[in-house]
């Protein structure tokens, strides 16, 4: 069971929403293709199969900014603490860390670089 951080807190997964309320997007999936189905969705898992996979960042930004998604936006896959500040700035609020990554230590990463030139 991968460690999970939600809203900057280490949590253990309790009740998941029903299957029908979860979407999973792979790097090549176009978020526009799900924009009309977002009403009933409570969680979207954006998959990052590799450490350097970058498409999911745009996916998350588009879901939040262009398609108005307000539910849980979860980064899953090869996620370490080093990714967290970037993902959070794009609207991700849940993070499934790769095996071996200590979630309590990882929390510090949110504060590691406080400057965001785009604000």
């Amino acid at each position: 069971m991968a460690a999970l951080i939600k809203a900057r807190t280490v949590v253990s997964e309790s009740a998941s929403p029903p299957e029908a309320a979860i979407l999973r997007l792979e790097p090549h999936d176009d978020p526009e293709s799900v924009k009309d189905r977002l009403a009933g969705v409570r969680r979207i898992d954006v998959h990052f199969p590799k450490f350097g996979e970058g498409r999911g960042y745009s996916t998350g930004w588009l879901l939040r900014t262009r398609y108005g998604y307000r539910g849980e936006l979860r980064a899953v896959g090869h996620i370490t603490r080093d990714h967290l500040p970037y993902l959070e700035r794009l609207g991700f609020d849940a993070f499934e860390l790769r095996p071996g990554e200590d979630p309590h230590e990882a929390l510090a990463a949110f504060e590691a670089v406080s400057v965001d030139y785009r604000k």
Partner: protein
Amino acid sequence: MYRYEEVDQRLVEERVAQFREQTARFLAGRLSEEEFKALRLRNGLYIQRYAPMLRIAIPYGLLSSRQLRALAGIARRYDRGYGHFSTRQNLQLNWPRLEDVPEILAELAAVQMHAIQTSGNCIRNVTTDHFAGVAPDEIVDSFVWCELLRQWSTLHPEFSYLPRKFKIAVNGALEDRAATFVHDIGLHAVRDAEGAVGFKVIVGGGLGRTPMIGQVIRDFVPWPHLLTYLEAILRVYNRFGRRDNIHKARIKILLKERGIERFRAEVEAEWAHLAGGPGTLTAADVARIESRFTRPEYGDVPSFSQRAPEEKEGTSPFSAWRRRNVHPHKVPGYAAVTLSLKKTGVPPGDVTSEQMEAIADLAERYSFGELRVSHEQNLILADVPERDLPALWHEARALGLATPNIGLLTNIIACPGGDYCALANAKSIPVAQAIQERFDDLDYLHDIGELDLNISGCINACGHHHVGHIGILGVDKHGEEYYQVEIGGSQYPAALGKVIGPAFARAEVPEVIEKLIGCYLAHRDSEAERFVDVVHRIGIEPFKESVYGRPDQGPHRRERERLAA
């Protein structure tokens, strides 16, 4: 100089702490090689042939004397007492220890410097004209726009894991001295009929193994929309650029596969969502950046008298230097001066710590304590009163920095090559030196006239060989170092060179260059017609013949192939 605001300083300091922690985690075995690689690269750290290499950012090539002194000290204490200025206006240290790098970064942060995004699959250090702000043909001072781009691209959350590296160059003058047509994005400042500033946007240029000249995607983006337009391009690239093959991952390949029309339509469709939105720049944004730049306080100085004793003979060493290494300035009475890092016998772009300190001293006494790095790997004192030129020349000459070869054949651009770089197929530096030795006669050099000779040790083209009037590429032939020669490339207007034929052994290269020059001299219609002009006028055939012999003189060629086999 751009002076850091509090946030700029905080960012570099936080980044040092973050990298210290990442390095510690790697050394403790808690980050894999692959993970740490992605992290260290975006802090400028490579693992090279013999040691790590640290690439320090010199944003848009602008440097203060204080910063240069700090670099000298770092090179002395953490390296072997020298550094290498690269074609991307950065400084590379070739021998730091991995464990020391966080400390080096901390010392850099203390003088408002860093190594952020000098490598890795992210937006790299933005480059520009080394005469920005002083050029008589200036349209805008590109430094202000470069700094805006630096801030926008630094730790950009969405564009930090791009398919591949991404290089942006800005040109603010009539002549393109920033090679904007061979960057992922090139920006040309332009003014519309009302005088309002905007940018012509060029996309998809690049060198490397698939050299391409960039294409104009939009003729005029009004300045308030610059960042949103770039955001649109980057988003299309981040989402659709290829990630399955590192050699096809640059934006130029996406552009080639889609064609400019389709690519432009995608960018414009994306931009339609963004134009006028939150990323739109205001006059206040630009003014805030502008206000952080210090400007030289120019005095009312006289123009240099032609009757100075050093000038009395037109052929004196001083006048040769003045012709080649002194450049016009937009303020009367001032000039920009190139300190040549291309003295024969010294690897192009290399400077010792002692030289750095002496150059810092020159900058303070002659040029308001500032200098620039050129993509030709020289240093520029941009604001020298003309009356000080003779004194500066005497001092620069004593330091070995006054070789009057700017724009000439021996002002060779060369990557570090096989002497340092793990990627190289062949060495660059000894080839550059052998050519410089062959053309050491200054009168001959000046007679040959303007000629850009660029050398890359491998197909990655860090030495920009594709846009040299003569380009030399190191290749591997059955484990031996060979050199392929191209001619006819040009940075401005941008053109790619053509390969003249089979590659040569290293020892043959100076002779080959000699023959090419001989062919040029025989064909030029006047001294004003440059080597590259002749290549473009008569084509490469006569040059090939001069090197390989005529096609009917078969034995020579067969002999070559036998030797090359």
